[in-house]
């Protein structure tokens, strides 16, 4: 690829196969309390 540089990201379609354990933090429970963002959360699944 000479024109396009693809950044290393988690493939969301792949995450459909092994995700959904629910161990991650509740979205609002840290600093904001007045909006919802989930992009800044960590995946806490023990074996990905």
């Amino acid at each position: 690829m000479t024109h396009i540089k693809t950044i290393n990201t988690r493939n969301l379609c792949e995450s459909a196969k092994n995700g959904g354990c629910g161990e991650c933090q509740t979205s609002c429970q840290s600093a904001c309390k007045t909006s919802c963002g989930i992009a800044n959360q960590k995946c806490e699944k023990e074996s990905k």
Partner: protein
Amino acid sequence: MIHAYQLGGYNIVLDVCSGAVHVVDDVSYGIITHFEHLSREELIEGLFKAHPDDPAYSEAELNACYDEVLALKEAGQLFSPDTFEPMAGTLKSRTSGVVKALCLHVAHTCNLNCAYCFASQGKYHGERAVMSFAVGRQALDFLVAHSGTRKNLEVDFFGGEPLMNFDVVKQLVAYARTLEPKYGKHFRFTLTTNGVLIDDDVIDFCNREMSNVVLSLDGRKEIHDRYRVDYAGNGSWEKIVPKFQKLVKARGGKNYYMRGTFTHANPDFLKDIETMLDLGFTELSMEPVVCEESSPDRLTDEDLPIVCEQYEKLAELMIRRRREGRPFTFYHYMIDLSGGPCIYKRISGCGSGTEYMAVTPWGDLYPCHQFVGEERFKLGDIWTGVVNDAVQSEFAACNVYAHEECRDCWARLYCSGGCAANAYHATGSVTGVYRYGCELFKKRMECAIMAAVDEQMAAEDPTNA
């Protein structure tokens, strides 16, 4: 669906549904942004004619570039379709009845009288009250009993001002620690405070027991003291800043956030972020005010472009300081592109009213702290559990696909449909959207992704940094 934008000297293309992020040159940016509307021949001819003397736009280059775009499309990294809707309720139904986080309103009272407080000076439109140990203990028992197989449980000591009931906070933490080995759980505590009552005992306790502390500071003294005053009208900045500095210094790297609120009075909030940095704080959060439509503090349409520009400048500052070896964290720009949340989390909504609830000083359950005081939303209490199935069902069904406006929004897998309370207050429905908040959120995500791209590019090619 894609989202293409130019920021910080980068052409960035997000493939919304795969989560892929691409940094592209001008030629491919031109091709990608017209790819879905024009044929190959039309696109190449158009770009060729628009740049007649530029060798980067020769027919050979344009064809090679088109092939790259096509290859990414075939690999599922560009223009990938949204196939996730059938999974939207999966996570919530899989974990139905499981509660993993409680916001304990240990004090519906406050020693400050901030005019912009969404909780009406800590009282949540009700009577002043503090939570007893007996109520708090029952709340912790309720959480453990409803947590299923989940190990990590989150409890936020919230108010009002939780340090006005500090003895109960200490007793509850001690009680929770006795539950951990018994039930195989681990509590993560957070305390949100205005700082007035911080002393050595508080510092020692918080740094030992709190996974995170959220410290309310609005930045510049004159901005902070405009709202954050005591009942005699005196500003609190002078009193709290040295306490926050002492607490953070003693914290030894454990999580904390300096959390500010900006309003119509300071849409130029970058100056407040810079003040926090000058004071030695590096873990920062700055939130747009949440208040009534009639409030003079509310951000206006005229403020919107100013705020968006501030977000861009904040990203530039973050990059500059990272390169200088003086990094800082901004809560909304934390984004882990390679290890962030899975698709189930991204489409299932914030979890309020199902896995997350707020507990009032007298033990009532509400979907979240922002609904406390809205009687219609009362879910039940910590002794009998949730009895208002109709309201809980509203929240259980509140996933990203429940918001019609989100369907064609590129940011939907970063916000999960947004804040239910903001949606309710703006539209009267938890499945509505708070459009002003969406505009700010989208700008924050563009900036966050650009800063993450810059970090990854610099790591791969340090000469670029």
